[in-house]
């Protein structure tokens, strides 16, 4: 039987799915053991038990100076920035996407501009951003917005253009004005696409967040990683990396669920 027609049974499938994770953990343990055997002080690959202890400490023990549990404070601050940045980017790109996709004038005016802007490397603009928007929360949020809005806008305006012309014509024959078409025909139909575009862009959003927090912040997941990098405190870094991975996964999953729940009409397509 061809390999493409062979399907693993249920228990085998579960085993297979777990396998790469198990292998990674084992490889890490061997690497860590080797390095620690050579130098018990080695910080690069701390023993899993050390990571576990550190993780427990980070999640539960409050900071001596401030009395807050830093990891939760960092998580709160970073998630707030992320939510704000992504939210603003979504709002901007939704409006721009509808305008560009729906109005020929707006398309002429903006689509070339957005295409060029999307090629600008936002990290290189960091110094300017900090000057214009200060070193507070604003500049971090703005970096995320600048970083992902062009992508979201291009994606959404393409989706608006993909809406069958027939639907737009039909709406016109029902007497709909441009505004009504935008609000009642186009907007609801690209909302699910907005969610999938956001899911795609979240990776970059995290990247920009971490980069911005590395430069100027006093709380945040990226700030903490950057801070302890100086001491090569890999136990802390790895805990934070795993935690960010987990958060990213949960957010992605939640958005997927939301999309399924909020847009029941997205069945098999028309």
């Amino acid at each position, binding site marked *: 039987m061809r390999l493409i027609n062979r399907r693993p049974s249920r228990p085998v499938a579960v085993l297979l799915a777990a396998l790469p994770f198990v292998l990674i953990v084992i490889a890490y343990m061997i690497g860590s053991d080797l390095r620690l055997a050579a130098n018990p002080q080695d910080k690069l690959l701390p023993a899993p038990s050390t990571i576990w202890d550190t993780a427990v400490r980070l999640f539960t023990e409050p900071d001596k100076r401030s009395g807050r549990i830093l990891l939760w404070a960092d998580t709160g601050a970073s998630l707030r920035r992320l939510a704000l940045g992504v939210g603003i980017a979504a709002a901007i790109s939704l409006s721009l996407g509808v305008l560009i996709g729906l109005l020929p004038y707006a398309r002429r005016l903006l689509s070339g501009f957005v295409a060029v802007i999307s090629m600008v490397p936002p990290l290189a603009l960091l110094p300017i951003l900090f000057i214009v928007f200060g070193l507070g929360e604003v500049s971090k949020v703005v970096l995320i917005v600048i970083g992902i809005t062009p992508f979201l806008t291009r994606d959404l305006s393409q989706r608006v253009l993909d809406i*069958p012309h*027939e*639907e737009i*014509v*039909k*709406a*016109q*024959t*029902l*007497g*709909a*004005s441009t*505004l*009504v078409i935008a*609000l*009642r*025909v186009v907007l*609801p*139909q690209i909302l699910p696409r907005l969610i999938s575009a956001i899911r795609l862009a979240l990776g970059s959003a995290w990247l920009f967040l971490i980069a911005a927090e590395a430069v100027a912040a006093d709380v945040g997941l990226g700030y903490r990683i950057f801070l302890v990098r100086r001491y090569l405190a890999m136990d802390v870094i790895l805990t934070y990396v795993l935690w960010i991975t987990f958060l990213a996964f949960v957010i992605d999953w939640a958005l997927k669920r939301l999309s399924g729940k909020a*847009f*029941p*009409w*997205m*069945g*098999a*397509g*028309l």
Partner: protein
Amino acid sequence: MSFVTVRDVWKSYDGRPILERVNVDVEEGEFISIVGASGCGKSTFLRLLLADELPSRGAIRIEQGHRAMEPNQERGVVFQRYSVFPHMTVRDNIVAAESFGTRSGWFFGKRLRGARERADETLARIGLSHVADNYPATLSGGMQQRLAIGQALTAQPRILLLDEPFGALDPGTRLAMHDFLTELRARTKMTVFMVTHDLTEGFKLGDRVLVFDKPRWDPHDPGAYGATITYDFDARDEGIPFQTIKEKTHVPVSA
């Protein structure tokens, strides 16, 4: 005067003529079937009637009114696909046909309740009451087209344009839709233009059958001339046509 007047209409895309010298007069309440080879410009003609495209030359008028510059509530339309809004329930699709004409596009309160009641009556008439709360994606092709027609008629257009409305349906469903349409017509006396691939269908449903074809063609450049109405059959007499030849077809043009 005739109800719909098409006078010397030409249409070209990128300099390539698709339709040329199209003239036709249609009385109120007539059912016009339009047939012709694939790609000869039937849908283009319908888009011109719809004012979704404007003629390169000539004019189309309803009751000697202004030339329409864009689609409006005078002209209802049903396409082969994508004629209903996938993100609205069946009932909301009918309500939309009333509410889209308002400033905000939404109805609220009493007006909404009224529109809903009228929508439910419409759905009962087109036999979709049992799926009023479903989304179109869950409906069969035939049901979707019935909804599309019901929606178009709710907006009370003066003419109804159908572009191969049953092209994607299987033969059984197609027959049922013929009955549905015949019945509706008996009730509303709407002026209808229907493009179809199926000659039988055209003769069965139409009062007149217009045939689009290229009367002139250049053997060295098949795209040099556009199509026009070459036959205009009267199909009222139970499908036994007596024909009016409007143009000689396939006259070679000496190159």
